[in-house]
């Protein structure tokens, strides 16, 4: 029995690759398996090679795997592109008139007349269902695996369509089962999970949207952009149900400034975008900073710069998320490393924004944003809503000065907040330097006070800024952020097999940076930062923040694709060997 199976379907865009992959993964998620997936697609609307890779695991995993166990190849291009990725014992399943089972030492070629079977049942349209049936049998699951999904998916289309699809699955299933029973084909079955609880299957953008909703967000204004649009699209459906609204803005600047306006009015507000949009929002980020308006900005990184590689993966917006904008503002940049974390961190982002009255950026990346992963059912009771120093109507009304001291100098640098409509709370929010009532001031003393207030207030943010697994005194310290989490985890396990002491630090908050990392840097023998960009932005950030003089190695990849585990291990080996010389 196996702990995992990597299943992949490939073909041309428009051949239903996506929906096939989704049905497959949802079925397994309902059975309690963990799913990590990855897609390859071209930046065009129709046509072009595409594939959908799904790793099914008994235990939690956050990496879609280097190898393929079952390849469902809808055309020859899929075979050509993927045959090198086949793992020993794997099966390449092709749709061919001529049935064939060819077991080589390494893999099995399995040609089945999928189209023909489908046509007998109801048409080529159910071909992928036949293939799913074959897959279920190979993995060792039941033939009713997809039944409930078929029912959900086609309930509007009626019983005929439903039973046609179910039949297609069964036909494929029986075909494969027969081969297995007859011993023409061998494939070890997948172990069942220890605890069988069905899981959520979702993309990171949905998790961000849902996290926002659960975290009290009631307003989103944004402009469409790949790979961020799903946040807006999802919230457009869901926010009205909880008393909120979504505005499709005319551009990214309007996207953020409308959100700032809504936040000023007292609403938890957000905008979502990707690199080019973030660049356009740069000036307005400063507005939120100096006016101390709490907003949340989701930025999902894609291949840059310029229009770059809009449908490819990269982690190259770190510098700009942390630094962009003239002058100096307080900001918080959170980097979730899994889809699950994207949910909770987004909810938390709104608390941070209101508590510290500053912009909070959620740093996602295309991998986290777009590829479906399983997530344990959410613990909604763990989500609290803390509005910080936002005063109630009654509290504000107590003020009987002419102006409310919206920017009152206080010990922690955070001032009480009133919102339009509240009696006693009149003030001017301002992008100009201002005094305590918010009115313009160019006094040097005021300037100094306000700078200290704004830039000092995050000092109180003492939550840990990274997760560390392993000891400080490590042979190897691996550091990453964002969606490299899964692959670094597996690299750590691999290296530990050689009895090396490996510590994995994953940075969760890029700024304010948690400099307790210094201890790890000083004690580790080898420090390696693993990230998907050219210049080593995270490494350089660590150098700037920690200033330890520690020699830090980089493992970088910037070709638009995530690391494979093999690449990471090889690069680590090179670094270790270099040192050994």
């Amino acid at each position: 029995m196996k702990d995992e199976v990597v299943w992949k379907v490939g073909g041309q865009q428009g051949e239903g690759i996506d929906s096939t992959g989704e049905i497959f993964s949802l079925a397994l998620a309902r059975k309690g398996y963990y799913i990590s997936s990855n897609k390859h697609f071209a930046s065009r609307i129709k046509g072009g090679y595409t594939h959908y890779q799904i790793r099914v695991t008994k235990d939690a995993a956050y990496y879609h795997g280097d190898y393929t166990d079952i390849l469902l190849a809808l055309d020859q291009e899929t075979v050509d592109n993927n045959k090198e990725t086949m793992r020993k014992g794997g099966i390449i399943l092709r749709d061919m008139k001529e049935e064939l089972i060819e077991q080589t030492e390494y893999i099995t070629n399995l040609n089945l007349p999928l189209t023909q079977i489908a046509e007998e049942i109801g048409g080529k349209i159910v071909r992928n269902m036949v293939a799913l049936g074959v897959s279920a049998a190979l993995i060792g699951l039941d033939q009713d695996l997809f039944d409930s999904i078929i029912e959900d998916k086609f309930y509007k289309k009626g019983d005929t369509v439903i039973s046609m699809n179910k039949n297609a699955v069964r036909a494929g299933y029986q075909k494969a089962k027969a081969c297995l029973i007859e011993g023409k084909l061998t494939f070890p079955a997948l172990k069942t999970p220890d605890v069988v609880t069905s899981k959520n299957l979702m993309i990171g953008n949905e998790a961000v949207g849902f996290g926002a909703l659960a975290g009290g967000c009631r307003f989103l204004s944004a402009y469409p952009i790949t790979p961020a649009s799903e946040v807006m699209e999802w919230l457009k459906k869901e926010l009205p149900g909880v008393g909120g609204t979504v505005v499709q803005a005319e551009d990214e600047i309007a996207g953020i400034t409308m959100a700032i306006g809504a936040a000023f009015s007292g609403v938890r507000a957000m905008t979502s975008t990707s690199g080019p949009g973030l660049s356009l929002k740069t000036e307005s980020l400063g507005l939120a900073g100096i006016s101390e308006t709490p907003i949340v900005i989701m930025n999902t990184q894609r291949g840059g710069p310029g229009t770059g590689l809009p449908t490819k993966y990269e982690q190259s917006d770190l510098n700009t998320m942390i630094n962009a904008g003239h002058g100096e503002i307080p900001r918080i940049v959170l980097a979730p490393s899994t889809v699950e974390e994207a949910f909770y961190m987004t909810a938390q982002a709104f608390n941070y924004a209101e508590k510290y009255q500053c912009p909070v950026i959620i740093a996602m990346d295309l991998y986290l944003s777009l590829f479906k992963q399983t997530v344990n059912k959410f613990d909604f009771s763990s989500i609290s809503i803390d509005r910080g120093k936002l005063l109630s109507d009654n509290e504000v009304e107590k003020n009987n000065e002419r102006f409310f001291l919206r920017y009152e100098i206080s010990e922690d640098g955070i001032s009480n907040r009133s919102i339009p409509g509240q009696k006693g709370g009149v003030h001017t929010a301002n992008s100009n330097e201002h005094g305590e009532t918010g009115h313009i001031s160019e006094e040097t003393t005021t300037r100094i006070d306000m700078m200290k207030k704004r830039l000092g207030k995050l000092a109180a943010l003492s939550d840990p800024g990274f997760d560390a697994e392993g000891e400080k005194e490590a042979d190897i310290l691996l550091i990453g952020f964002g969606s490299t989490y899964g692959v670094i985890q597996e690299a750590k396990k691999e290296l530990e097999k050689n009895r090396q002491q490996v510590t994995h630090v994953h940075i969760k908050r890029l700024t304010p940076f948690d400099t307790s990392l210094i201890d790890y840097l000083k004690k580790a023998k080898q420090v390696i930062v693993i990230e998907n960009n050219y210049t080593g932005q995270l490494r350089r950030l660590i150098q700037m923040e920690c200033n330890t003089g520690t020699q830090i190695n980089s493992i970088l990849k910037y070709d638009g694709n995530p690391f494979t585990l093999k690449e990471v291990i090889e690069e680590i080996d090179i670094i270790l060997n270099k040192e050994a010389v």
Partner: protein
Amino acid sequence: MATLKDFRGDQPTWCPGCGHFSVMSSLQKAAVDLGIEPHEMGVISGIGCSGKISEYTRAYGFHTLHGRALPVAQGAALGNKDVKIIASGGDGDGYGIGIGHFIHAVRRNIDITYLVMDNHIYGLTKGQTSPTSSQGFISKTSPKGSSEQPIQPLETALVNGISFLAQGFSGNIKQLNELVKAAIQHKGFALVNVFSPCVTFNKVNTYDFYKENLIDIGAIEGYDVNNRGKVIEKIRETNGLLTGILYQEEKATFEELTPEFPEASIAKQNLHLDVNVLKAIEKQFQ
């Protein structure tokens, strides 16, 4: 009931004689006349001499960025529909860098009032050609005369479906006050464009110039404030030198046209959702 004094904010530092004084007092007087309290109004301005209106008016204010008063104002209006939102700024702010937001705000028709102090010049940056400066206008950035045809904000607004359009003049504060009042009372996006002379940098579009050249629509026979096509024609004919409520219609707002737009102000929604509500939403992922 609030008085004029209640609406007075910081001490203005505009040049003596600046047209912006009249716009500010018209707004303050309109608020008093309409029985609005300072805390029930939000004045959201861009950057420019004009933008300082949110400093000098005592109300909830937001002095935003150059060109961005409108989207901030729209966000604030959607966030809390119980507050009267006034967006405000200059010709450079609104029709130069901000013209994109302007057109989209017009067609979106959210319930706000937009006051533009149009002095045909960039005042705060000390006198450069603005998008409403006339062709041939001499300034620091067009020392031999500007080569561009001025933008036509009134017509642009009309062709894109504006539901309330007025134009006033700082030299006629009585009328201006009425226009601002009507604009605030209008449901939907209401623009009041105000000829508001810059006495320091614009020696062409002066008080005298406007006194000589403005025509009030009251003086035009058969002027039909509900006929969009005819209004456009009239504006074209008079080179835009009209004052009064130029166009008005009843029109559904963005809020009304948005499905399921919340009845109560969004700012007052309960953020603590029942776990069952969240679980019901979660179902779609299973």
